[in-house]
């Protein structure tokens, strides 16, 4: 398993350096475009400063920012015991050194993400809509997928690659805008002999400013997609139950709600692309996630075991290709891991009304509402700022006393 992480790290480093090189070239060209004599190095310096500041911010408070932006709230075991149990099961199965923190997001759309640059200090966040929709096995599949992102160091990598991408986009944008407003001033100042060379540098810089962000994004998306497959494969290995994740993905795909708190930057962090595509044409290249239907087909094709080899075989069968999605060290592990049977807990039928009610209940619990079950069958929800020591059931009028 450690070799797998190592292989992953190596590949990430290559991508990381190519993004870094793009960033430096960008700085160099922009600098030269303004000051032909030695300006390139000033440009590099500024590019590095911008990148450094962004990296520091994300290293020290990236998780906090992500969790705050998505409106996630940390919960205790009392709020949702099953979610806690499932996270702990996956912690044991994946061999994480510490229990990840558990967050619930107040959203009706089903989705989940993981954060934490180091496995010792990680968090798993799921939406209330997800908890209301999924049964135990499905929830386990989703949590396993998220935990794999932590174990495979995807969170760390996507955070830093995202920062690099962000810097590239930011610098290109600043450069193009500055041209619009006052770039001409400098070129008219330069001497006539270097005018032509300067012109060429300028054109190269403009072309670069337009192309670099696009290329960097495509690179970023391609890697993000590959990591989703790997996380699916790891999730099956941890749970030994591919159908759980498959049917969870199916439910997520069938939902019509859009996640309000997600944006382009945070999208790769989620289990399924939270942004519904408008035009489907370009999705293959510009999507952060592989098509969900394909992920489900691969999971359902798995047979004979839950190890990486089984996932790779299913992948090749569905994609009709020989491309390798799992690093070789993962495939070298030939131990057969038996598949688990479904948990025999009767799941409530996915009735729409009940589901909406459950979603609401979970959200209220997260926000520290108290519940009283009245003998007439009504569930009374008490907001945390309710001060009186008793209340009357709105349906039957029975008096209930409130303890705290």
């Amino acid at each position: 398993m450690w070799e797998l992480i190592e292989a992953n790290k190596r590949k990430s480093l290559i991508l990381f350096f190519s993004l870094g090189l793009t960033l430096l070239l960008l700085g160099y060209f922009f600098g030269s475009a303004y000051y032909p004599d030695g300006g390139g190095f000033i440009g590099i310096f500024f590019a590095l400063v911008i990148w450094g500041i962004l990296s520091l911010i994300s290293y020290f408070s990236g998780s906090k920012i992500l969790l705050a932006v998505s409106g996630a709230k940390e919960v205790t075991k009392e709020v949702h015991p099953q979610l806690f149990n499932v996270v702990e099961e996956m912690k044991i199965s994946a061999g994480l050194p510490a229990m990840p923190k558990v967050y619930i997001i107040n959203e009706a759309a089903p989705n989940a993400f993981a954060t934490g640059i180091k496995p010792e200090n990680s968090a798993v966040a799921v939406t209330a809509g997800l908890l209301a929709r999924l049964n135990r096995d499905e929830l386990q599949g989703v949590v396993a997928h998220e935990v794999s992102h932590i174990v495979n160091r995807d969170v760390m990598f996507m955070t830093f690659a995202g920062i690099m991408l962000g810097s590239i986009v930011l610098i290109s944008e600043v450069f193009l805008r500055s041209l619009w407003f006052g770039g001409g001033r400098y070129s008219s100042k330069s001497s006539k002999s270097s005018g032509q060379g300067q012109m060429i540098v300028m054109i190269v810089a403009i072309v670069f400013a337009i192309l670099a962000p696009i290329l960097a994004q495509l690179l970023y998306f391609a890697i993000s997609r590959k990591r989703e497959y790997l996380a699916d494969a790891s999730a099956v290995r941890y749970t030994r139950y591919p159908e759980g994740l498959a049917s969870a993905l199916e439910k997520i795909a069938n939902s019509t709600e859009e996640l309000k708190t997600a944006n382009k930057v945070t999208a790769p962090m989620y289990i399924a692309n939270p942004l519904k595509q408008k035009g489907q044409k370009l999705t293959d290249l510009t999507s952060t996630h592989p098509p969900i239907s394909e992920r489900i087909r691969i999971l359902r094709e798995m047979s004979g075991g839950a190890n990486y080899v089984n996932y790779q075989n299913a992948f090749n069968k569905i994609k009709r290709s020989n491309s390798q999605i799992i690093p070789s060290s993962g495939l070298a592990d030939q131990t057969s891991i038996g598949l688990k049977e479904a948990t025999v807990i009767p799941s409530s039928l996915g009735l729409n009304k009940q589901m909406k009610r459950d979603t609401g209940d979970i959200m209220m619990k997260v926000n520290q509402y108290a519940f009283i079950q009245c003998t007439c069958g009504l569930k009374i929800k008490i907001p945390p700022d309710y001060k009186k020591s008793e209340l009357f059931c709105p349906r039957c009028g029975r008096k209930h006393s409130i303890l705290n």
Partner: protein
Amino acid sequence: MTGLIILLVVVAVVVLFVISMYNSLIQLRNRVKNAWSQIDVQLKRRHDLIPNLLETVKGYMKHEREIMENITKYRSQAIDASTVGEKAQAEGLLSGALGQLRVQVENYPDLKANQNFLALQEELTSTENKISYARQSYNDQVLFYNNKIQMFPSNIIAGMFKFLQEEFFQVEDEKERAVPKVSF
């Protein structure tokens, strides 16, 4: 003189080799122990949950006396078991009996709606999952450690310092599979 130096060097190399071999064996044995404690915590948790479960279920299930007696019996067997093998066997029987209980619950709709019971059932299911996931990593560690003890040259050191083979935690698959599937 040269002969003496050569002899000293050879002795030093051998001593260093023995030390490093010994340390790596200790490390492996500790890993096995650590993995075992992971399972042990969960087994204890399950033993603690069972009296509560039986207490909750008792009022509803009047006709399942036999299953409940079995659960009590296997539970105390599991607590008394000392070796890994004995424990694995008793725990396997206990899992089987609990599985039977879970199937019978389907006949008692009132019980299925009992919040206390549902919470206990969730805890029990989770504990059993944790046992099975922890078992996997324990058995991996044991395999690695036992291989080291049997293979040359580490087997010499293992023999000298009395490193003994550890037992696998194997729950008989037949017992686990014996839980009949529920069809709705």
